């Protein structure tokens, strides 16, 4: 019974997401695609930052690698950029694999540095990736970028063609609609895998490394390898996210994968709550949708000036809200959206097997433990607080 109750929100959300293409217009479909691509990247990053305690500002580079890998693997060589014409499914897998390999190549640094030091070091990856994107013109199309073949399986294309016309229950299914389901599938798979990793031997080892490297090593965990593993896993996620971005855009260029993308990924998981997969999804939705919606519907908001008139316009407001949301969550919302949701749930006293049950004050004697006062115990040891 609790099993069902726990799954219920997830199932409901998935069903809702599956129903949306019947209701939404192109703007919202496109926004949804960008959001789902970001969700995949955010899940990967929250495994790295939230679970393993390692910061990365370099994930835009892995997303770029994934995007270009997909475009190159699936594309055909034409005048502008090379390609090898693999089936798109393979291209999607390859995007994750190549990004993972690149993440592994970075392990001499990702395994040795920790926390924010790694975050700073990874900034370099963004610029390195950009340099390669611009200069390896044969594969990337240079600064102008290259177009991306639509996703397809034999006999069916996730674009406006093949079949040229497809309608489900009276709604015409164009490329955006079709891609929606592909993306939804990838997101669900990514969330499921992420949750499994988090709750597995590897996930526990990563959390232990985050909390104390010394203790982790003493239980037989190879600390450097664990940190590198976390980095590789989240690189693979970023690579797949990049491939999805490529599909959502239809055309990719180096400008899409700047430092801002890395920062956005990071903000998503912080707003959502570090380490929480549902939180990462919520954070991604907030970060992607907010500016688009504000710009799109700015004319309906009476207090907003029209763009260019010099007053507070929608884009400026979106940036301000974005910055203010980060500041507010960090100042007032311990654990981000997921933390707040958890507290709300607990207050409603519903059992939630995902989280440990509420923390009652130490009981006055449970079992064999004569719960005496315990001296000299900071609740957080020095190792965990750093």
């Amino acid at each position, binding site marked *: 019974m609790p099993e069902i109750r726990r799954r219920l929100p997830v199932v409901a959300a998935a069903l809702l997401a599956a129903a949306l293409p019947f209701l939404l*217009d*192109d*703007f919202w*479909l*496109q*926004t949804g695609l*960008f959001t789902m691509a970001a969700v995949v990247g955010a899940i990967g990053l929250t495994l790295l930052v939230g679970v393993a305690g390692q910061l990365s500002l370099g994930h835009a580079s892995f997303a770029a690698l994934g995007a270009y890998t997909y475009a190159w693997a699936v594309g055909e060589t034409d005048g502008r950029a090379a390609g090898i014409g693999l089936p798109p499914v393979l291209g999607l897998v390859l995007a994750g694999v190549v990004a993972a390999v690149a993440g592994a190549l970075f392990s001499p640094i990702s395994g040795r540095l920790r926390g924010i030091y790694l975050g700073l070091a990874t900034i370099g990856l963004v610029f390195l990736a950009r340099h390669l994107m*611009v200069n390896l013109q044969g594969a990337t199309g*240079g*600064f*102008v*970028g290259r*177009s991306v073949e639509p996703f397809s399986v034999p006999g069916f294309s996730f674009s*406006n063609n093949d*079949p*040229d*016309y*497809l*309608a*489900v*229950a*009276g709604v015409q299914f164009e490329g*955006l609609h079709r891609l929606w389901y592909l993306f939804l599938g990838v997101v669900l798979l990514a969330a499921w895998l992420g949750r499994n990793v988090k709750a597995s031997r590897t996930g526990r080892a990563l959390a232990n490394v985050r909390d104390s490297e010394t203790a982790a090593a003493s239980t037989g965990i190879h600390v450097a390898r664990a940190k590198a593993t976390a980095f590789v896993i989240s690189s693979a996620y970023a690579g797949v996210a990049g491939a999805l971005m490529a599909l*959502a*855009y*239809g*055309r990719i*260029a180096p*400008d*899409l994968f700047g430092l801002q993308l890395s920062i956005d990924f990071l903000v998503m998981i912080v707003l959502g709550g570090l380490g929480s997969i549902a939180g990462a999804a919520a954070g991604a939705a907030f970060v*992607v949708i907010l*500016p*688009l919606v504000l*710009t*799109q519907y700015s004319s309906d908001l009476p207090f907003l000036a*029209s*763009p*260019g008139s*010099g007053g507070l*316009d*929608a*884009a*400026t407001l979106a*940036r301000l809200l974005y910055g203010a949301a980060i500041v507010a969550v960090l100042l007032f919302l311990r654990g981000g959206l997921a933390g707040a949701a958890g507290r709300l749930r607990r207050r409603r006293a519903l059992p939630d097997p995902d989280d440990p049950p509420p923390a009652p004050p130490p009981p006055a004697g449970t079992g064999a433990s004569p719960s005496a006062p315990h001296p000299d115990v900071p609740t957080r040891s020095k190792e965990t607080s750093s």
Partner: protein
Amino acid sequence: MKHRIRAALALAGCAAVLAACSTEDPNAGQGGTAQGGSAGDVRTGTGVTADTITVGMLTDLSGPFAAGAAVQVAETRAYYEKVNADGGICDRDVQVDVQDHGYDPQKAVALYRSMASNVVALQQVLGGPTSAAVLPLAQADGLYLGGHGWAGVALQYENAQIPGTTYGIESANAIDYLVDELGVAPGGKVGVVYFVGDYGNDSLAGAQYAAQQRGLEVVPQEITPRDTDLTAQASALQQAGVSAVILGAAPAQLASLAGVMSAQGLNVPIIGNTPTFGPSLLQTPAGPALEQNFYTVTSIAPFSLDKPGVQAARELYATAAPDGETGWEVPLAYAQAELLTNALRGACDAGDLTPEGVVTAMRGTADLDTEGLFATPMDFTDPAKPPTRTVYVSRASAQADGGLEVLGTVEGPSAQSFPVG
């Protein structure tokens, strides 16, 4: 048990979905356009109703090009107000749907999706990365797309309209002008300082081609929009002994480069592409150096040009934004509105005011006179060729309105032969 129920539900769901599927287009065979209808004898599609025509501007009002974009929005709005006051187009009022992408490609793509079902044409999609993201989508939708700059890559798109010529031809003309008018001798070296990207690379390609034609050597220096201190580049150019510089960058880079070169005693001509100059530069420390050395080659007429088309643009702007900044954006916005209006009228005359009809009308324009907004009449019939190869040449002058004094027009031999597309 639980599993079996789940499986049965899944099967039932699939069956229901399949039953609701159809791959037969009910509209097929009804004449091509899926939506829309016709009013009177003019066929219409998205963006056109019985009494309005909606055109779009997808521009940057909060990003790096906000100021210039605002000028263009103001001028464009004023233009269509005047058109509407004069009776509109095809008996309809023209409305301008302005959306702000903030120089963010992701926003641009999403906003494009919302506009594509609302507008009959996009008068402007500003910015390199943003227009690069939107162009293929607009092509797939067959939507007229103007005002995306002068990059040569746009020549591969049937639906994209280039207002004048390409950066590459601008730069080729610049080389021709250096040799023919400014006395740069064959065998000399010309520096090309350019932004990484389609704009800069196009400019470099034109300069390199022309230099080869005219027996000059190019010294390339790549920069990014973030480089605002060009000391190292200036030193490198001086070291190489250049006798002129072509700049495919933005005003901040021009100020730095001109200032440093002049301070180092390297007083050689600097010729910039259209987006390089802004009149406020003349107030910076680099002002004197600019007046001494700076020239620009532009497709669009400089603000101060004394021709009827430009005059009309100036007058409209003076009433629309009396205190607004003056620059090449004013005639450009006016000219683009003229081009689109011409296409819309053509589509109306042809009885096809659908998005496709607008593109067809634009491509049917062979000899459009813009009364000086562009240097020659415009010919849009071949998508793979720019509408003209002639540019205006001007030089910096604090006396002139908009900071540029027009010297004349150029269409040099290398510009004529420069292979585009």
